[in-house]
């Protein structure tokens, strides 16, 4: 199989459609491994990986760690709270120290946009961005593409609606790039205070009303709404948000019959999405999580495994 000709995965903005296709195809093979009784291949035996999480994460961290175990890589996970950051050590020093212990790939989540770029510029090891501030979360974007492709059979021509706090969402940014590169049409919906200040660079349109945006949609993706946005005056209350922008059966009635419902998690039930919708047969929320492990196995393979075997 081919390898990705790049050191890092920092965002989907800079990844080509061909590369995305390669990752998604590889992820399909990886999912087969996950379905085996003994979920382990020796592909990354003897390879060392660091998971560096400066922000809390359950799903993404578990997903990366399992992907590493299924691929037989050796990995260590360091959480921000217990890290040397607290002792005043810089990110650069922290990672350079770990690098000389033999780590070949660093997976990092960090609260500052651009932190993954900064890290990649400063170390020789590969960097996979597991979420940088409000910028990108490329592995989430890829697993969303994987899920949609799996359910719909194609990505080209689909209408995908992203609803909610796009402004602060790295998931939305990665999806906007990934989906458009694969030929899907992306539209946004939500209150103007939660939209990015200027959409010019993205090439997507934003609607004030969810009902209008979901007209004839194939996929609708709700984003997690954080309570702290209310505290900073961006909307009045969770109750009002749910009433005007929350996804319910009624609100998505104008979409296609086979509408696919997605959410990157963790869900605030009854706020950005109703339980009945999140748990409905049309919901792919748990499939997204399964796909996440497969996509991460594929990325590790393509970044580390492929190159060394050539």
């Amino acid at each position, binding site marked *: 199989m081919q390898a990705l000709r790049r050191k890092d995965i920092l965002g989907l903005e800079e990844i080509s459609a061909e590369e995305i296709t390669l990752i998604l195809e590889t992820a399909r093979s990886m999912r087969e491994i996950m379905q085996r009784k003994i979920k382990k291949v020796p592909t990354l035996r003897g390879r060392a990986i660091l998971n560096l999480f400066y922000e809390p994460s359950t799903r993404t961290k578990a997903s990366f760690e399992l992907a590493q175990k299924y691929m037989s890589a050796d990995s260590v996970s360091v959480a921000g709270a217990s890290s040397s950051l607290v002792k005043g050590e810089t990110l650069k020093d922290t990672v350079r120290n770990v690098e000389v212990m033999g780590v070949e790939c660093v997976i990092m989540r960090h609260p500052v946009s651009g932190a993954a770029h900064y890290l990649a*510029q400063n170390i020789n090891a590969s960097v996979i961005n597991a979420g940088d501030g409000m910028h990108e979360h490329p592995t989430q974007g890829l697993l969303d593409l994987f899920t949609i492709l799996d359910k719909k059979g194609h990505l080209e021509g689909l209408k995908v609606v992203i609803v909610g706090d796009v402004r602060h969402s790295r998931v939305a940014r990665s999806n906007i790039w990934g989906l458009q590169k694969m030929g899907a049409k992306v539209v946004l919906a939500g209150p103007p205070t939660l939209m990015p200040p200027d959409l010019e660079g993205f090439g997507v349109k934003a609607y004030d009303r969810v009902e209008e945006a979901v007209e004839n949609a194939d996929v609708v993706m709700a984003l997690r709404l954080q309570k702290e946005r209310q505290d900073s005056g961006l909307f009045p209350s969770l109750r009002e948000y749910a009433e005007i922008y929350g996804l319910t059966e009624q609100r998505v009635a104008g979409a296609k019959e086979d509408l696919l419902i997605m959410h990157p998690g963790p869900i605030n039930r009854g706020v950005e999405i109703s339980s009945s919708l999140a748990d409905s047969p049309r919901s792919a929320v748990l499939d997204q999580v399964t796909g996440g492990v497969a996509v991460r196995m594929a990325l590790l393979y393509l970044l580390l495994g492929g190159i060394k075997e050539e």
Partner: protein
Amino acid sequence: MKKLLIKSGRVIDPSRDYDQEADLLISGALIEAVGKGLKAPAGTETIDAAGLIVSPGLIDMHVHLRDPGFEYKEDILSGARAAAAGGFTAVAAMANTNPVADDLSVIGYVKERASQAAVRIYPCGALTKGLEGQELAELGRMQIGGVVAFSDDGRPVDSASLMRNALQYAKGIDALIILHEEDLSLSAGGMMHEGSVSSLLGLRGTAAAAEEVMLARDLLLLKHSGGRLHLAHLSTAGSVEMVRQAKAAGLNVTAEVTPHHLLLTDRAVKNLGYSTNTKVNPPLRSELDRQALWEGLLDGTIDAIASDHAPHHPDDKDVEYDFAPFGIAGLETTLSLMLNELSAKRIKKLNLPLLLEKLSTAPARILRISGGNLRPGNPADLTLIDLKQQVSVNPDAWYSKASNTPFAGHRLTGAAAYTIVAGEVVMKRGVVTEKEPVLHG
């Protein structure tokens, strides 16, 4: 008395529209004569300025020298050497040091250090005690002690009431107030210009409105109170338009712009891969703003070009974007960046006398300090400029302790060839003359 003859340069004095090939004779610390075929006594030291521009010494009216308190970033002597290297004969140093220059004792320290510096250093005093925006600093006492202007630069004056009092009080002692315009509630958390690029990069934005809201308030206060106001580092199209209207209405207001706001936009943050050397306050704005700044500069709305030299230690900038301090160090790039624009001929109405007016005559006039002209009898502060010299921006070779510039690696045409302060050559072809330390005792 020691004489120095500068022969056959193109002498430009923007203060009196003088632009011709001539000689300039210095006697001691003063200009003795300007004219063709000047005679000097046998043995007079001569600089052959054929092919060079002879300009009144450049004055950077907005620099941060970090001294006292942050000498690891820059100090008065290193900043002065950087100024000399960049062709400046004088700089105005902002008050946001530690302790803050809000008191005669700190001003005294700055002046004491300045006496050993390569160029003239004019201290600015804080407008409010501790830059806290609560009580006025002792403006009158500092003015008597030699302060040329008052500013809380780095911070706005949040309270409209205090701002109004400051204008009224300063009017009484005929003092200049320099303002950094920023509404802190609008800019809170902002890392770069709010616009399409901040949206793409996921960095929190500072909207143009953050500057314009405060600027509008202060122009209204100026209109009611009178006084003299200078606006630091304008960055938005809206600001330019407001200043244009204020000047048309007869308000006593002047403004400056930095080379980085004239030459770069928010795209630089993306193109340089989140380089913290693009992080500056006010932020690099949009292309429309950039064009409006040029228009303002050319039509006289913007009076001066100033570097807003904001040096930081490399370690301070070698962190994640949000954690880096704001600022671009500009003393050693400002002149070459502007000369390069002149030689690139991208800006139709830009010409050399206009550029020298913005870099020398206007700052002298605004700050009411000597310099900015080449009239006989005045101090011999001169900058000799080589329009053809090629330079590559290499911050590792700077005299400044800092290296924070988004222009590293840029190849520019045009540079200062000599910097002359009070008749003494302090920089020749990029090399700053070391002064003998003055011992006090």
